[in-house]
């Protein structure tokens, strides 16, 4: 459900405004109504700083440092600068290391030799020339013609030297020019640079936990400062700038705390009931079960203030659909085990809630696995002792139940839409929706006979809801307008209802398809696995276990993805459409609690 809100307008003397805001920020319950979106210079500066700190925290977190926290010798900003300098220095070092490594790669085929000796030989009239060529281009007669020695062969290239006492030898090969420094010098330089890099890495690793903690604190402070600065802009000046008016929303359940504070500080205020047309912010309030599904609701959009929060209505269906797509007792148990382990390991409350949701999905998989008779893709219907206890006997029934679930959810959505219309606009405006429900209910029961359901007992009575529904659609779709217009509009509406309904129902076939494809894949894994187990002596059972683990994990992962994504679509497209959902609502973000 959506929390009821109340609008407060505070009347403040301009000099008291800042103090009042500081107290309001501490309270953290009022969602301030914006009157200005301009950013001040200090806000812009704050944003840049937050970005810088955030980026640095992200970098330091990646180091996964387990070093003990220490008292930082530097203030926060100085530490940030030092870390950024260290990072820049490291970048430069890495660039230099790359260059030195390239030089080493060029020189290493020649190995280590005495450069002085080469120089002395040159002074005494003997020049040593360094050559390279492809191995298949090397001619053996060169060795007969010149004093030539092959030094190395790397990657199909020959490195050789020729000693001459006059001019260049006539060789079809490349000559190699040496760098200013020797290979030894480059290697020494590389060691030195790598040591410098290691020093920086060690420093960053040792300071990371301390810095992350300090920067996160600073981020919180900057965020509050930014928020405060933003709130300062929202107060409107009145009475020649001596008075400032600030408006905001507060959930009625939290109102008492604010009232006490206002009365205690003698602050003048006006409060009034929230009106839908003012677009009050939305705060959802649900029981523990539906609350777990709120992140799914928020993935799409929040409802308007005068709408129904559909979270508690789609939550059971969503879990059931997930179970339908992954109907397997073994998979359900695996999902629950994984979720319990992760829930125990995680510290973040939001993530813990997601794991609880996963446990619910796993439970749904176990229930539906029993209903369809599948455990780790083995068909439980083949076991005589429990064969009769399995509810769904074959794939045709899965197909029918997928459509049935769709029909139930769509009719449920239309019922919600009818109640909402009656509540918001009056009973006569809801008559068309009630008529739609009656018509579709009748057609659904009739249609179920095509799928083999015995409806002989109710068939004689089905005409009543169908005719009544038709009459309501045709006669009451535009209350207040003349009857001819109503009827003409009614036919158009009827066309939309019928085609839309069958299109929506068809969409639920996906539940059947996902369920069957997951079962088939699991069955194939088992077939291949049993062939491995029986076909390979000695190591067969070990490979069987590994293969089954890998295969079924893959199937669970794919089934989990499909089992989440497709119910998401069924919820936000088919169900929301039929429940006449309207949004987006603005999320309630109280001043002082913004992230």
């Amino acid at each position, binding site marked *: 459900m959506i929390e009821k809100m109340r609008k407060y307008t505070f009347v403040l003397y301009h000099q008291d405004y800042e103090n009042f805001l500081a107290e309001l920020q501490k309270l953290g319950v009022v969602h301030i109504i914006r009157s200005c979106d301009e950013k001040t210079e200090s806000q812009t500066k704050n944003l840049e700083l937050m970005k810088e700190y955030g980026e640095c925290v992200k970098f330091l977190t990646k180091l996964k440092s387990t070093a003990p926290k220490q008292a930082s010798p530097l203030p926060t900003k100085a530490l940030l600068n030092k870390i950024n300098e260290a990072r820049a220095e490291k970048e430069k070092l890495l660039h230099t290391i790359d260059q030195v490594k390239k030089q080493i790669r060029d020189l290493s085929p020649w190995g280590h030799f005495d450069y002085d000796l080469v120089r002395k030989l040159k002074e005494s009239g003997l020049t040593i020339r360094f050559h390279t060529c492809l191995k298949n281009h090397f001619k053996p007669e060169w060795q007969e013609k010149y004093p030539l020695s092959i030094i190395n062969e790397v990657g199909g290239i020959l490195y050789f030297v020729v000693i001459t006492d006059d001019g260049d030898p006539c060789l079809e090969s490349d000559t190699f020019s040496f760098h200013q420094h020797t290979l030894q010098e480059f290697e020494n330089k590389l060691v030195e640079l790598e040591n410098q890099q290691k020093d920086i890495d060690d420093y960053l690793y040792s300071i990371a936990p301390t810095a992350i903690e300090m920067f996160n604190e600073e981020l919180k402070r900057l965020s509050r400062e930014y928020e405060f600065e933003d709130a300062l802009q929202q107060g409107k000046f009145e009475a020649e700038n001596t008075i400032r008016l600030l408006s905001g929303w507060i959930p009625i359940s939290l109102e008492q705390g604010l009232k006490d504070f206002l009365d205690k500080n003698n602050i003048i205020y006006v409060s009034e009931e929230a009106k839908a047309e003012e677009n009050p912010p939305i705060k959802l309030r649900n029981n523990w079960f539906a609350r777990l599904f709120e992140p799914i609701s928020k993935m*799409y959009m929040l409802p308007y203030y005068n709408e129904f929060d559909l979270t508690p209505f789609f939550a059971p269906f969503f879990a059931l659909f997930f179970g339908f797509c992954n109907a397997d007792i073994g998979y359900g148990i695996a999902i629950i085990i994984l979720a319990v382990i992760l829930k125990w390991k995680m510290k973040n409350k939001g993530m813990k809630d997601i794991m609880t949701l996963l446990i619910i999905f796993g439970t749904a998989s176990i229930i539906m696995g029993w209903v369809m008779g599948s455990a780790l893709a083995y068909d439980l219907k083949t076991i005589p002792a429990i064969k009769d206890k399995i509810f769904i006997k074959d794939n*045709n029934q899965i197909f029918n139940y997928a459509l049935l679930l769709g029909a139930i959810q769509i009719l449920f959505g239309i019922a919600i839409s009818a109640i909402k219309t009656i509540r918001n606009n009056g009973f006569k405006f809801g008559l068309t929706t009630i008529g739609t429900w009656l018509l579709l209910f009748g057609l659904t029961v009739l249609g179920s006979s095509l799928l083999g359901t015995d409806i002989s007992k109710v068939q004689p009575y089905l005409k009543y809801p169908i005719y009544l529904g038709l009459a309501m659609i045709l006669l009451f779709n535009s209350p207040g307008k003349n009857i001819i217009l109503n009827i003409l509009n009614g036919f158009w509406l009827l066309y939309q209802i019928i085609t839309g309904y069958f299109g929506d129902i068809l969409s639920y076939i*996906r539940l059947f*398809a996902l369920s*069957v*494809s997951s079962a088939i894949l699991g069955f*194939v894994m088992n077939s291949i696995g049993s062939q491995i187990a029986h076909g390979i002596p000695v190591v067969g059972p070990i490979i069987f276990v590994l293969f089954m683990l890998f295969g079924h994990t893959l199937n669970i992962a794919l089934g989990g993805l*499909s089992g989440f*994504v497709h119910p*998401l679509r069924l919820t936000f497209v088919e169900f929301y459409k039929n429940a006449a959902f309207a949004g987006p609502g603005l999320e309630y973000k109280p001043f002082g609690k913004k992230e």
Partner: protein
Amino acid sequence: MASQNLAYFLAWIGLFLMVALSGVGSAWGTVIGGRATVGAMKKRDDIFPSCMILSALPGTQGLYGFGSFFILKAYITPQINLLQACAILAAGLIGGTVELISAYHQSRIVATGIESIGSGHDVFAKTLILGVFPELYAIIAFAACFLIGGVIPTLA
């Protein structure tokens, strides 16, 4: 005997189309998604988990093709007649073509979403929802193959 051989041949052609086209579609689709992910990660390296989920979406069409193959392969026997073979060939054409095209176009939605995520837009959930739109038709093709499978014994 000749018609028996032709029937047998046509049925296997049907299964070939079903598995090959859907497999190609999924492989192609996941490659497009994967490439978009790698590109987007040049801008933001923290988006891999959500992009990986999106990239995996076009992978399911191949499974539907394989599932259809599994349902229909049981009907390919040396005694298969021409009518049954034509039904399997039709199922192969329906399944293979729809899976291939839907996987490719689903991957285009997904890749666009991934690029947007890389540019800093919070569109993961919306891409997920829009991404499964073309998959409905792949699912309907799979369901059609399943229903064709139910008809085949009556053609004996």
